Every structure is written in C-alpha cells, then in structure tokens.
C-alpha cells in the first residue's frame, strides 16, 4: 500500500510542483509578489477540497463520467494557461496590462494545477479513512511521494534561478513546452477512460524499459508525459500540442522583430 500511495501522490505533487517552480522562477524576472502565487496555492487547495467532497455528484455528470471529463477540462485549461504564459512572456511585460495578464495567468495556472492534483490526493487519502489499518502506510507513502515531488520542484526552481537569464529562459521554455504537451496527453487519456474517445491498440510498449509505476516512470510522466503504452491518438495529440506552442512562439518572435 505504501508503494501505491507513493506512486499516486508523487504523480500529482510532481506535476503541480513543476508548474509552480517554473512560475516561481519566472516571477524573479517580472517582480511578482510571492504572496499572489501563495494565494493561488491556498485558493486551489480550497477548491480541490470542495471538488473532492462533491466528487460523487461530479461523477454522476455526463452519464457517470463527470470526474474524467472535469479532469480533462482542468488539464486542457492548464495547457491553455501555459500557452498563454509563453505567449505573454514572449510579448513582454513592459506595460502594466501585460504584467497584470501574465500574473493572472500564473495565478490561474497554480489554482488549476492545485485543484487537479490536490483533489486526487484528497480523494486518495480520504478513501482510506474507513480502513485504519491501511491509513498509516498510506500516510507514510503520501509523505514520501509528496517529499520527492516537492524536492524535485525545489531542485528545478533553484536550477532555473541560478542559471544565466538566457539559459534559464531556454530551459524554462522547453520544460513548459513538455509539461503542456503532457497535459494534452493526459486529456486524451481521461477522455479514453470516459469513452469519449475510442480506445485503440498502443503504438508501442516500453514498460519493460521504464515502468510507469517506478520513480523514474513517474518523474518522466510528470515531466514529459511519459506513457509506456500510448495510443496513436495520444501521440498525435502530444506532438500537436508541442507544434501549436512552437508555432505561436515563432509567430510572436517574428511579430516582435518586425
């Protein structure tokens, strides 16, 4: 049970902490108050709790696949927030309206990530409240998973802030790109689970090389959306998501240089 708790909590915490570390690192360059980002975490946490409490109602929506559809919606929203964040960062924040837009996107991204990942953790842990024998390994496993996830986020944050600005922007851009694409891959996964997208045979199976449930597998899942057995539509969606961000970035850069 401990391993299950580690895997589930690590997966959720890692995703959220990567997004937060990216935003926090970027906030150094646009002098955003850390309080506004902290506000996003607290607000997201409260929404996550409310979402988890009303999960039975939510699950009944859309003919019983409400949870999958809402999760897919949250992840899609995170993708668009990341797309907007990259676009605004490329446009610049010289005008107050641009700065406000960027800060709003960062706070919204943190709120959405906290809801999505936080609700999963709350649901998982509260699910064991009626099984006291299993609660201890679940809590210990959750602490270990959260500890690893937060530690990776802290390491990436300090890696970004101690780099030169140029390198920090480059690495930050690639990370944002990969995390955003991973979100789209998960959207497809959720919609397959909801039977909104037809399930197909996987394109490949790399579970013998890197198991999805291993620490490495979880790290890669959060970082690049690693799936050991992805379906063709997942792969297509993943690369389309990357292509869209790259296209928007080039468009903004070409507009700026004109």
């Amino acid at each position, binding site marked *: *049970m*401990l*391993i299950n708790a*580690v895997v589930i909590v690590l997966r959720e915490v890692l995703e959220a902490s990567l997004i937060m570390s990216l935003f926090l690192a970027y906030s150094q360059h646009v002098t955003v108050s850390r309080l506004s980002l902290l506000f996003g975490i607290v607000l997201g946490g409260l929404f996550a709790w409310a979402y988890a409490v009303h999960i039975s109602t939510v699950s009944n929506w859309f003919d019983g696949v409400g949870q999958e559809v809402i999760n897919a919606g949250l992840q899609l929203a995170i993708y668009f927030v990341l797309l907007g964040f990259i676009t605004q960062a490329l446009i610049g924040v010289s005008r107050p309206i641009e700065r406000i837009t960027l800060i709003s996107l960062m706070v919204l991204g943190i709120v959405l990530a906290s809801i999505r990942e936080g609700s999963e953790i709350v649901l998982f842990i509260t699910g064991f409240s009626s099984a006291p*024998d299993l609660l*201890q*390994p679940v809590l*210990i496993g959750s*602490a*270990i998973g959260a*500890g*690893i996830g*937060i*530690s*990776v986020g*802290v*390491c990436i944050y*300090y890696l970004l*802030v*101690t780099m030169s600005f140029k390198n920090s922007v480059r690495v930050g851009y690639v990370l944002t790109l990969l995390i955003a694409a991973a979100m789209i891959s998960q959207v497809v996964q959720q919609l397959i689970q909801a039977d909104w997208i037809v399930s197909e045979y996987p394109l490949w199976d790399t579970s013998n090389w890197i198991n999805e449930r291993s*620490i490495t597998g979880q790290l890669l899942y959060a970082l690049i959306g690693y799936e050991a057995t992805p379906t063709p539509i997942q792969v297509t969606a993943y690369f389309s998501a990357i292509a869209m961000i790259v296209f928007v970035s080039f468009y903004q850069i070409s507009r700026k240089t004109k």
Partner: protein
Amino acid sequence: MRSIRTYLLLALLAIITLVTFVSLLKGYQSSITKAQQLFDDRLKNIAGIIANANQDTQPRTAGVFKLSPGVFFQIWSDDFMLLAHSNNAPLTQLFDIDNDSAFNNINFSGYRWRSYTLQDTTLNRWIIVGERDDIRYTLAENVVLASIIPIVLAIPVAALIIWVAIGLGLKPLRELSEQLNNKQADDLSPVVLRETPKELTQLVTTTNALLDRLNAAFLREQQFSTDAAHELRTPISALKVQVHNLQTAHKVNDQEIESLALGIDRMGHVIEQILALYRHSPDQPLMKRAPLDLCAICQHVIAKHYDQIALKQQQISMVGEEKCVIKANKFALETLLDNVILNASKYTPDCSEIRIGIFQNNQSVKLVIEDSGPGIEAHDYDRVFERFYRGKGDQHDSGTIGCGLGLAIVKHIVAIHHADIVLDRCADLGGLKIVITFPKQVKLTS
C-alpha cells in the same frame, strides 16, 4: 536568490529528502522481498513439521484441524484422496502434480494465497500448506514501516537543525553586515569580528584597508583645509590693514582704492565660502552632531548680523516656537543660517522685510525664511544650488559681494542633516520663500 539562508535550507533539504526517500523506497522494496523469502522459508518448514507430525495414510473420518484464518493445509494421498485438512481449507485439490514449482500463488475463499507443496515420499503423500498473501504482505509492511517512520519524521527535525546550523554558519556575515550598517557617518574605525572565518577574511581585510585609506584621506584634507584657511586669511587680513592704512595715514581716498578694498573683501568672502563649502560637503564624515535648539541658534545668528541688517534699514522678525530641538552640527547649522539670513538681507532692497518662522510637529521642524525682495525666477530654483551659479549670471544686479556658493553650501548642510529644502515665492511679501524641513529622528549613519 533572495536569501542565502533560505536557499541553503531548501536546496539542502530537497537534496536530502530526495536521496533519503528514493533510498527508502529501494530499501522498502528490498525489505519486502526479503520478508517474503523468510515467509516462504517458514511455509516450507511448516510443511515439513506437518509431514512428520501427521502419519495419516487413510482419510480422516472425524474432526478437522482448527487453524487461524490466515493459514491452511491439505494432505493428499498419491492417488489424490484428501487424507486430512485444516478447517479453512477447501476440499478440492490445490496443487498441480505436473507443476515443478513448489511455491505457487492460488486463489480461494475470495483471497490470494501463497502455497507450498511438499511430496512426502516416505508415506507417498502430498502436503500443501498456504498463507494468505494479504496478511503476509501487511505483516511484512508493518515490520518495514517501523524502520521507515522514524526516517520520514526525521526530515522536519533535520530541517530545523539545518536552519539553525546555517544561521550559526552565517553569523559572522550577519555580524559584518550589522557592523557596517550601524557605523556612524564619522566612524571610519576598522571592522572587528569576534571570529573571522576563512571565507570572510579577504572581505574584512579589504574593507578595513578601504576604511583606513578613507580615514587618512579625510584627515589629510582636513589638515589641508585648516592650513589653507590660515595661509589665505593671514595675507588677506594684512592686505585689508594695508588698504586701511593707505586710506587713513596717507589721506588717499579715491575710487581706485575703494575698488581695491572691495576686491580684497570679495576675495576674502570667496575664500571663506569655498572653505565652508568644503567643510560641509555631504561626504565629509568628521562632523559631530548634538541636540541643538534651532530657535536659540537662529536668534544668535540674527544678533550677529543685526548691524548689517540695520544698516539697510531692513525689518527682521522671528515667529513660531520658543524651542525646537534638532540633532545637528552647531557650526554647520550656524553656517546655514548665516547664508540664508545674509542672502535675504543682501538681495533685498533697503527698508524691506525679512521674516523667519520656526514651526514643529511630531516628525519634523520647519524653518521658513521669507523676504520682500525680488525673489528668484521659478526656472532658477534648481540651478541656484549649483556652485558658482548666480541668478542673471555675471550681470547680477544686487551690487553685493557674492560668489554663487551660498545656496550650494546650504544644500550641502541640508543633505548632511537629511533635511529637505524647497524654494518658492512668498505669497505675503512677494519675495523668496525658503522652507527647510529637518526630521526630528535621524539615523545618523553613512
């Protein structure tokens, strides 16, 4: 990086947590595997004990062996007759004779079981023993968890210890920073730390060398200033005496002698002003400050220059508080008042009015000097504080001795005292209005 302490704490804690928890997981998996091996060995031993303890070769007609719900056994004859079994064992055969593996995972009664099959060749029997998988796993996990929990709980304790340790490590840096921050403006003594770590030795040595050089430079300049004042004042005083003697003893009193006397006065004034400007430069650290009554000093300065003011039949008045204490340098404050009051007198016509006001509130003391003279054009308000700048340039029409340093000196003294000066047109008298605001609480540091 906003704080070295936070950076070190978070970075160290993240690395320690990451390495510890990943190792913990590896250790957990290895321990669980090891525990499973131990349980398997135990199962094998149980099968051996049953084989020795039970000699049944015919099916037992009455009674079954009562065991705990997590363990079962069956004894089968070679021709697949159930000879004996525990109360929780099914009556069906739970082993495959063709299976070479002694250990197997089987399912019955809604649980997964780990079983071991022993062939009793002496009595031609098959003994099958099994344990519930979930109970085995929970037991193994509880044993491993007992060793994991203290490590997980140690992380917050480690965070606290790291926080304190980093704080202690950074103490010399904090001490250095506090010493530099708390240094008085005139304190150029070397920085002395109780213990100077190797990493800070160079910084402390360089800072002290810099302070030492700065102190020497200021002392040198002060010496130069004193020498220059003495060396320049003496010949000018001698020249003044000579001119006076020329005028009185030789009864010479023509226009050229008058111009000579005026030129000597002007030279004397310029030298005094240049020396005052130097002495009150804002980067001059050797200036002692003490609580002073601005009203008393102001009265003293008015009295000092009253003859000159009376000569022009000017009316001077002082209004406001009776006592206003500010922390200031007496000589500097007198020089400031000398300049603003003499300026008001010099640059306003005969029979004009000069009004001085001193007011205070909880935060500040306000000195207001107003006159009924021509005032200064608004576009010149900033420029009059520049050295050697005189309104209307060399064509200044006041006809008084001046060199354009008075307000520059005033500005310097205002800066030294962290005060603020504003020029305006006096609505009442129509001339210049100077408002100098002194803060009551001044952090007198560099």
